[in-house]
């Protein structure tokens, strides 16, 4: 297993280089370093000299990928891409274009993101599995039918509707909680967080329940369930002891992989509710063309996603005795 994990970590290196290369290329197809400088310095009355000075200060004065006349190192190392990329692999994200330290920003903004993401994740997982089990228990009856219809309706509504609708109903009409905002103080923070959390849960309930229902129904039709029934077990035991444990295997594929990504926060929820988390951080960076932040976040996301996949594989070995890693 250790050998397997080490191999997976080694495989991650080319993936990260690739991700970084593509982010880099895409970003600079849209923007030139000059454009970035103008964006930061303001569009009016900017001299070429100011631009060059900004570029030099932020390390964008070299060629992007290939340097015909390297001042130091060789043609590949003395480029924007190389210099900026190498530091990422040491998790040194450097400074944003406005001079703030990105690592510092991330470590501060991580907490509001988690404050939304973790409750949403845990509560939806429990709720979705419970609803799916109830629907599976009453399969092929009206409960099942109505459940699926409800799920489809919930899925068909855009999450933006839930956000705006929730803000209008709960905050504007009923005045139960503030519309948006955040506070570092725990008591006040709860007031700000409760609405985005509920909306995050409601928004995902349709798709989640329907997906888990499919998994449960697939398991229920398998031969070993018939054996369990032939033993004379009650339907409750059949569902909880036999079906649930087997259904965990496919459920884990989807669930464990996203756990590390919870750090990244939610792009939409955070923007709409004014939560200073990593999601809104990314959105703001894209809006202001801050390349340093964008690539730091993309890089961090890729790392977390790879960790998620490795965790998924490890969790398989815990729920499914047939799977052993690295053994053929």
């Amino acid at each position, binding site marked *: 297993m250790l050998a397997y994990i080490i191999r997976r970590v080694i495989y991650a290196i080319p993936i990260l280089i690739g991700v970084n290369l593509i982010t880099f290329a895409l970003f600079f197809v849209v923007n030139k370093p000059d454009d970035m400088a103008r964006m930061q310095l303001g569009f009016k009355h900017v001299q070429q000299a100011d631009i060059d000075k900004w570029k030099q200060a932020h390390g964008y004065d070299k060629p992007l990928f290939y340097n015909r006349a390297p001042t130091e190192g060789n043609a590949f190392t003395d480029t924007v891409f190389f210099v900026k990329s190498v530091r990422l692999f040491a998790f040194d994200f450097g400074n944003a274009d406005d001079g703030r330290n990105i690592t510092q920003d991330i470590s501060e903004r991580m907490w509001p993101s988690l404050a939304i993401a973790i409750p949403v994740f845990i509560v939806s997982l429990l709720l979705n599995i419970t609803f799916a089990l109830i629907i599976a228990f009453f399969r092929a009856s009206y409960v099942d039918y109505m459940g699926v219809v409800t799920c489809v309706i919930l899925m068909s509504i855009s999450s933006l509707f839930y956000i705006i609708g929730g803000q209008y109903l709960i905050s504007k009409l009923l005045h139960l909680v503030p519309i948006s905002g955040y506070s570092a103080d725990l008591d006040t923070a709860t007031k700000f967080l409760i609405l985005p959390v509920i909306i995050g849960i409601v928004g995902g309930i349709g798709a989640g329940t329907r997906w888990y229902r499919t998994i449960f129904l697939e398991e229920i*039709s398998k031969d070993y369930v018939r054996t369990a029934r*032939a033993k004379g077990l009650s339907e409750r035991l059949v569902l909880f*002891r*036999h079906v649930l444990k087997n259904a965990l295997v496919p459920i884990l594929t989807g669930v464990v992989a996203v756990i590390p990504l919870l750090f990244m926060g939610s792009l939409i929820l955070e923007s709409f509710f004014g939560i200073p988390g990593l999601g809104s951080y990314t959105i703001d960076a894209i809006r202001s063309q801050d390349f340093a932040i964008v690539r730091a976040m993309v890089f961090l996301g890729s790392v977390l996603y790879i960790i998620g996949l490795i965790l998924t594989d490890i969790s398989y070995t815990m729920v499914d005795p047939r799977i052993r890693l690295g053994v053929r």
Partner: protein
Amino acid sequence: MIATKQTQNKHKAKIDHQAPLLEVNNLKTWFDSRDQIVRAVDGVNFSIKKGETFALLGESGCGKSMTSLSLMRLVPEPAGRIVSGSVKLNGVDLLQLTELKMQKMRGNHIAMIFQEPMTSLNPVLTIGKQIEETVTRHKKMGGYSAKKRVLELLDAVGIPDPKQRYDEYPHQLSGGMKQRVMIAIALAGEPALLVADEPTTALDVTIQLQVLELLRKLQNDTGMAILLITHDLGVVAEMADRVAVMYAGQIVEHADRQSFFSNPQHPYSKKLFDSVPAMAKREHSLAVIRGSVPALSQQFKGCRFEPRCDYAWDICRCQVPAWQLLDDGQGVLCHLLDPRYASQAPDVKKQIAPVIRKQSANHAGALLQVDGLKVHFPVTKGLFKRTVGFVKAVDDVSLVIPKGKTLALVGESGCGKTTVGKGILQLVKPTAGCVVLDGAQLNRLKHREMRAKRRDVQVIFQDPFSSMNPRMMIADIIEEGMLAQRVGGDARQRQQRIDQLLGQVGLAPEAKTRYPHEFSGGQRQRICIARALAVEPKLIICDEPTSALDVSVQAQILNLLKDLQDSLGLAYLFITHNLSVVEYLAHEIAVMYLGRIVEQGTVEEVIHNPLHPYTKALLSAVPTIVPDADRQVIRLRGEMPSATQPPIGCHFNPRCANARQICRNGYPEALKISDNHRVRCFLYKE
């Protein structure tokens, strides 16, 4: 109608001389399928006495599995439902119980084992837990006493090291062991009736023998009755006290074993017997049942077997036959035995006489020569996937197939026989050895040359359901090979050739524009044969081509393969575990055990004079239909070991009754007994 009912009642009175344990009356289980009702079980009556084995015999789709699930009330809902009837176990009608009360019956008074032990156990629970569940549910035991009982059960079903096995998961056990665990689960409640639905169909013959003997022994010890559902006449002959034959949702004949095997009465039962391949039938074609099982969604006006029956006449078409009871208690649902109609029956004896085959005796040269074929798969380990060993799937196999002949490669699952086929086809790269087809050494050919050569050797796979692309039309499936090999002329000529091929395998040209799912298993296998024939091969590798098919359909395919061999001069490498098919079809046999051929020779030599202890055991393990007083069953200990770590010396020595010290030291060389007959065993060294 009244007459029918009276005969039915009279007939029942006669078998009821001892109070039955299970009484099934007019059981009907129907399925809703789209907008029609499929009557899978349509008025089934039978009864089982205490301690007896009652076999329900029939081909797939006749409703025998649905009957067994109906007894357990496990019919998949909501599509299926038990419409009417009664199932009385010790006088209690199971169909009237509430679901909660029925749960107390299941696993307790009536238990069931299933066909697929591989999928019937929960993969994520230990086998100990799975057995214990039944013990705690029905026997009010818990903790230590429950575990002790589980260990007793594991021991009773012959699982070695019960303490260690208790904590193992199903995937760590072989198929035979899993079926033993299933039996232990069923036994846990000490049931009065065990329903065994094809309990050995998925197992090898030597393991089948072990499981059947176990069931017999447990029946002796506990006095439970067994309802044995099977399609295998041999298994019925070995196990049953009484037999009922099912066809199209109804029982058409019932009898005790003796009368049934000495004198089957229903035309369908007779056909079943005639379609079983055997050595004695080599000279002629096997009997086939024409057409296919009727759709069970229709209302039958006459006899359900009438469209396929050789004896049918007018009355069979318009009147439902009534039960006819013979002197020895045998009952038949057929007009032929009805005294009112029997005299009108047409004489059809001549029409159904078997077709005699001409035996072609041309001894042409070798078509395929395999010399020292080895296929080894590396076992890797660690960070850098070091090769730490090899699985010797095929280890030094040599074969010769002459033109127009059939060589059967026989062995149990996991012995490497399929890998030999793949090695010959170059679908896996042989590690060593050479494969010479018609003068060309296949394993030396370049990729492009091999592609051209593929025209000469084609393959038919075991599962006709998954070996065709479901989104391609039949015409395209057959044409694909011709296009790849650039044979068959222009588009128009190719279409003509497809028509001709379909005719050759007995399908109508309309099949061209249809898709694989529209055909039955037998028809699909015919399409696979047509596909193989399209490029005019010289050799066809048939990998278990009939093992997914019913006996009557198997007979059709075997007849077809033989006809094609006679008319086209094809050679076959027939890979199979079914020895009766081999006896009927093959000219030569090679018996494989753990990657090596242990004995080979002509069919006559190997079947009549088997020398290797493994061949002997294999042959004796096949259940026979004809009672044979001289038959000595050789029981093999344990199961075939894994090819990762084959036993030192002769691979067979740990299971061999004749093993001596020399057998543990080295692998015996091939010994020539006659021109063709070779055996690798130290017994014949001197």
